[in-house]
């Protein structure tokens, strides 16, 4: 019950924050130098089509009416037409969203799990060679410049070794072949995902490892660990069953706090590997002055970040029974 109330309260907060973002974006698009009409209406459109779109978006009305249209269009999913693709923006967005979610969630979960596991090992061997190797490795991979790492991965494993495809998400010959079943297709996507996923994984796991390590060292000093030792439990049980679950809580918090950072990284990774996701679409639309698409991608990314934050908070509340909001 408590938890449900907490979730509802957070949802309301998220709705307010999102509404503010929506409004700020509207103001920015109107305040920026240049003609707002040219920003929403494709210059290659016929005058009749352009006129229809202008009245649909309310661009011929006073600014506060435009704002009402804008909010209404957002809630009815009408984001206008992409200049580049010549399709409704909403179609493009829905098409790209699953790809981003797939890459993003897999990389976060994988790096958090591995980070927690390796952090536990590092703390257990504190001051020894294992610890030093893991800690230094984490520091280095965590601070390496992501786009550069992506280029190196492409150069090394895609070009030199030729093990993995370096662009896109699917191979046409597999997907157009009527013979290939769902398994072959999934395998093909997985094959394309190896390099972008490893890039994101390498960048992220280090931070989680370092947090887990110091959190473990703190936890091992707690009274209940001494009690467990006094009971004569084995070190392995103390480490895995008593200390680790509690020590992992700060990792969950940091996943939440670093979400914005991860989104930046996701957009860069998608761009370098031409992974057809929202982040790449945002970068692409910004470079090609495709304003309707840029606006919608940005709003969608904001929603993803806010909801992911909520998921992390709820997960935290669920994992730590001491915390009841």
């Amino acid at each position, binding site marked *: 019950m408590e938890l449900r109330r907490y979730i509802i309260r957070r949802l309301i907060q998220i709705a307010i*924050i999102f509404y*503010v*973002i929506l409004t700020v*974006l509207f103001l*920015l*698009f109107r305040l*920026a*130098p240049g003609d707002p009409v040219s920003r929403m209406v494709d210059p290659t459109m016929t005058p009749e089509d352009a006129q229809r779109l202008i009245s649909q978006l309310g661009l011929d009305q006073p600014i506060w009416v435009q704002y009402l249209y804008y909010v209404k269009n957002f809630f009815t999913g009408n984001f206008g037409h992409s200049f580049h693709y010549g399709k409704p923006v909403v179609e493009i967005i829905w098409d790209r969203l699953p790809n981003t979610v797939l890459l993003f969630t897999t990389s976060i979960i994988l790096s958090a799990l591995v980070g927690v596991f390796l952090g536990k090992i590092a703390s257990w061997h*504190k*001051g020894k060679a294992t610890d030093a190797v893991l800690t230094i490795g984490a*520091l*280095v991979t*965590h*601070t*390496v*410049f*992501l*786009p*550069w*790492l992506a*280029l*190196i991965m*492409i*150069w090394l494993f895609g*070009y030199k070794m030729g093990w993995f495809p370096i662009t896109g998400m699917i191979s046409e010959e597999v997907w157009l072949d009527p013979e290939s079943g769902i398994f072959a297709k999934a395998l093909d996507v997985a094959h394309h995902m190896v390099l972008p996923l490893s890039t994101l994984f390498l960048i992220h796991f280090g931070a989680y490892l370092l947090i887990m390590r110091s959190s473990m*060292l703190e936890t091992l000093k707690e009274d209940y660990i001494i009690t467990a030792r006094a009971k004569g439990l084995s070190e392995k049980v103390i480490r895995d069953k008593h200390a680790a679950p509690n020590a992992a809580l700060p990792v969950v918090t940091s996943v939440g*706090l670093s*979400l*914005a*950072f991860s*989104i*930046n990284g996701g*957009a*860069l990774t998608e*761009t*370098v590997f031409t992974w057809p996701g929202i*982040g790449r679409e*945002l*970068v692409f*639309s*910004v*470079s090609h*002055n495709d*304003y309707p698409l*840029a606006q919608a991608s*940005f709003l969608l*990314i*904001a929603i993803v*970040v*806010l909801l992911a*934050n909520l998921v992390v908070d709820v997960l935290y509340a669920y994992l730590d029974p001491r915390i009841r909001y």
Partner: protein
Amino acid sequence: MAGSVQKRAGFKGAFLEGWEIFKESLLGRIGLTLILIFALMAVASFIPPMIDPMYHPMHGVDPEISFSTGPSLRHWLGTDFMGRDILSQLLAGARVAFMVGVSAAFMSIFLGTSIGMIAGYMGKAVDTMLMRLADMIMVMPTLLVVLILSSLFGQLNIWTIVLIIALFRWPGVSRVIRSQTLSLKTRPFIEAARVAGASHFRIIFRHIMPNVLPLSFLYMTFRVTSAIIIEAALAFLGFGDPGTVSWGMMLQWVWKTGHMFKAPYWLLPPGICISLITLSFYMLGRAMDEVLDPRLRKEADAS
């Protein structure tokens, strides 16, 4: 935490004591050394164009070369696709990195510290408002925000980029400073100042600020790294200031001109520099963390 740095003999004493602890940290020593090397690079960036105009990182083109060549005696790290010297670009990049990193970090720390102190000290509505604002900015991916802004306002120059980074990177600091201020507020010396009739402004900047500054300073090292990374990523995506040669820009050139498979001498140096400068400020930050946080120090002593 910060307040517990013992005041031995004023500021100088505290500084010397901190330095004693800092010196013990291997991470801190490596980090500081690397930063000094990068600073030397930044200073040295003024030399090549003086030797010969063809070494100018932006406009200098070797009259005999019009494509990318490997390392040679004339160009120690080779040349880029137009025949510009990669080494002098690399040195100029160090200058840009320091400029961006330090100024953005300074501004965001200034904002974060002031806002954090004001929120913590004033409490009530002011606190709620400022912290909600911080929450909102905190969830925004800075890089993508700058991208959107540069699509709307056209090519941004380097100082505008610095300003935007600073405006979006203060919330983390302000939260820490706020909680520090909350605990300071209950201390007797603040009470005494208030009874003596000091204004809010004076209490905040005269009595609270000296106690939170060490913590702000620690956060500054982390902000330096994030500013450098954001600028580099922006330049890499093609939205950097076209008038500056940054490491991110160099990577963009090698990537966009299709040289990444054939010119490792060009692909490796800028990436290594961005990564190393990030690493060195990060190590510096962790070492300073140990100086400022006695809890960590004890842990190190115990082992």
